[in-house]
């Protein structure tokens, strides 16, 4: 018997159904519910091409909002100057930077789900990695745009590039903003290539089955993939290297974003805990956003076979864990400022606890702590897509408010009372922030119809490695290590 035959025999792959007296239902587990490869391919390609009237209406609405609220308002600001924002001394950072941090945070979902869970061989990640990785690329593009929006004179952005010029300008490597540019560029390139690499075999599958413009597109994108041993070996090597490399890059991005604030002398920002606090918040909001997107994609693209309650439930458990960790960091940060006894620092806390920021602050605590803690411990809630949708949306409202409070709430008070000032975002700022959300959703909606949202070959590989095995009267889940 060949090795594969022995592996199959041990794992029970292809073996006749086992009769037992115990009725154990494993139908909720994708890995133990295999279907023929052609059926899996068909399901994924059909979902990708499903663009009915409702889809185009949604795309049209999102495109209109993105065009008017995001690009239109940005163009208006370019023509009118940053005076149309609510920014003024001492509040030089507002909704734009809060949005930037928020979207960078959302981008952490893809790397966390795909790379970290890949390294730890978490089974539930298999069908959801690509959906999360696509979120990373789309949200990073939106986040990066906020850097351009925030600086105002976006047309001179190229000044940050290091190239000899007659003006004698050179990037200031001492500045955290330049670290930021570098980290985001690295993360954007890395996460996009990390999305693309495992996509190649599925693009080749789409190439072999589809005709017309899609065939041409996938032929170009699949790079002549034939599935030879050499190609698979190099692909797996590349994915392994990327999985390990992209994790510290992910950590560096939000660390450096937090240092944008922590390297200043502003009250409340100058904290050594900011880097891990920001990373935990980023993963917390990113995982929540991933659940939201997965629920919507599953429903709209009819991907119930691939994306099951087990996957959403597993992510929900992680969200609960990260809610605990986020609360820990939040309390540690709050306590340090409160216990320090600095009068101006107390003014900042007073703004949050009982001042003008209080509605945001209490909403944040409710969304980030009360909602997940009271709900996600319950298995029935974790198995309810509607409940998870509402909970994860609430968490991201809470996380946006957290970014807003950290950026705009802390700048209002400082050690110079004559330099205190309040901040209200203008219509232009709110418009751009809302438009950015529409832009993200639009990018995602278009991407989901252009590339296979489910990594078919990874799901098939996972199903090949898993089976039910009879031990006594029980059927047990077993897994075979297929890798070298």
């Amino acid at each position, binding site marked *: 018997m*060949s*090795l*594969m*035959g022995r*592996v*199959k025999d041990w794992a029970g792959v292809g073996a006749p159904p086992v009769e037992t007296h115990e009725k154990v239902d494993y139908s909720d587990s994708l890995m133990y519910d295999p279907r023929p*490869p*052609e059926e899996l*391919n068909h399901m994924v390609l059909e979902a990708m091409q499903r663009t009915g009237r409702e889809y185009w209406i949604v795309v049209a609405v999102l495109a209109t909002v993105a065009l008017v609220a995001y690009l239109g308002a940005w163009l208006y600001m370019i023509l009118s100057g940053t005076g149309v924002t609510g920014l003024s001394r001492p509040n030089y950072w507002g909704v734009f930077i809060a949005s930037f941090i928020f979207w960078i945070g959302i981008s952490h979902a893809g790397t966390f789900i795909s790379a970290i869970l890949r390294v730890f061989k978490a089974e539930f990640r298999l069908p959801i990695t690509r959906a999360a990785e696509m979120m990373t690329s789309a949200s990073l593009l939106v986040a990066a745009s906020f850097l351009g929006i925030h600086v105002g004179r976006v047309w001179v952005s190229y000044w940050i590039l*290091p190239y000899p010029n007659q003006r*004698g*300008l*050179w990037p*200031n*490597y*001492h*500045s955290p903003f*330049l*670290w930021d540019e*570098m*980290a985001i560029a*690295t993360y954007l*390139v*890395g996460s996009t*290539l990390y999305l693309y*690499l495992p996509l190649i*075999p599925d693009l*080749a*599958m789409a*190439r*072999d089955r589809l005709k017309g413009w899609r065939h041409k597109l996938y*032929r*170009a994108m*699949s*790079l*002549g*993939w*034939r*599935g*030879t*041993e*050499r190609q*698979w*070996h*190099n*692909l797996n*090597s*590349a994915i392994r*290297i*990327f999985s390990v*490399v*992209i994790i510290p890059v992910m950590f*560096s991005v939000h660390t450096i974003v937090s240092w944008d604030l922590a390297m200043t002398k502003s009250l409340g920002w100058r904290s050594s805990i900011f880097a891990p606090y920001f990373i935990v918040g980023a993963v917390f909001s990113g995982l929540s956003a991933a659940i939201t997107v997965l629920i919507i994609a599953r429903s709209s693209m009819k991907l119930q076979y691939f994306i099951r309650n087990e996957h959403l439930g597993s992510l929900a458990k992680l969200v609960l864990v990260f809610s605990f960790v986020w609360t820990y960091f939040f309390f540690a940060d709050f306590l340090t400022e409160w216990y320090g006894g600095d009068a101006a620092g107390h003014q900042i806390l007073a703004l949050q606890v009982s001042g003008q920021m209080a509605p945001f602050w209490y909403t944040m605590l409710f969304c980030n702590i009360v909602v997940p803690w009271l709900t996600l411990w319950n298995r029935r809630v974790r198995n309810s897509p509607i409940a998870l949708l509402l909970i994860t949306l609430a968490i991201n409202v809470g996380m946006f408010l957290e970014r807003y409070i950290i950026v705009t709430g802390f700048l209002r008070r400082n050690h110079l009372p004559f330099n205190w000032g309040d901040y209200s975002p203008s219509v232009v700022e709110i418009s751009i922030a809302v438009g950015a959300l529409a832009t993200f959703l639009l990018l995602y909606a278009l991407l989901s119809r252009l590339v296979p949202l489910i990594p078919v*070959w990874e799901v*098939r*590989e996972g199903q*090949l490695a898993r089976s039910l095995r009879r031990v006594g009267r029980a059927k047990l889940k077993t897994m075979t290590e*297929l*890798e*070298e």
Partner: protein
Amino acid sequence: MSDTTIVLSSFLEIDPATAALDRLRGLGILDSDITVMSSLPHSAEILGRPHVKSRLSVISLVCAVLGVGAGLFFTVITPYLYIIRVGGQAIVPVPPTAILLYEFIMLSLIVGTFGGFLVLNRSPSEEAPYYDPELNDGRISLLVHTPADKEADVLAALEELGAHVIQEPERRRL
């Protein structure tokens, strides 16, 4: 090479495919003359084939070292060409330099790994290869370069094990 024939065959299951590999070796076909194609990454151990050696990790390492060089150039050398004095800090302060050096290394490693993947796979390939599009439905394909005088034996061995043989396969544009 004019007396070499190319045979493309595909199997529904992996077991007859691995059995066919044994038979082909028995007929004197070298492993280097056989290419296995599949829609899943089967290991060399599963296929009973020689391990594929990849230099990708070496390429990645070299690119990381190049990243160190690029990083040092930008963060250590160029600041002396365009001096920017920031209060209390040296012209080349260690902590910011370390941060940027790290990012340069990572960016170079990432781009280099992807570039290495393309080079090692010779992709995007303009050459029209032999290929079975049914592969994605779970089939395993064997592409065999066989001497013309052994073609009949090879075909018989493959068909005996249930292979669907595509005789005189044409190169197809993917």
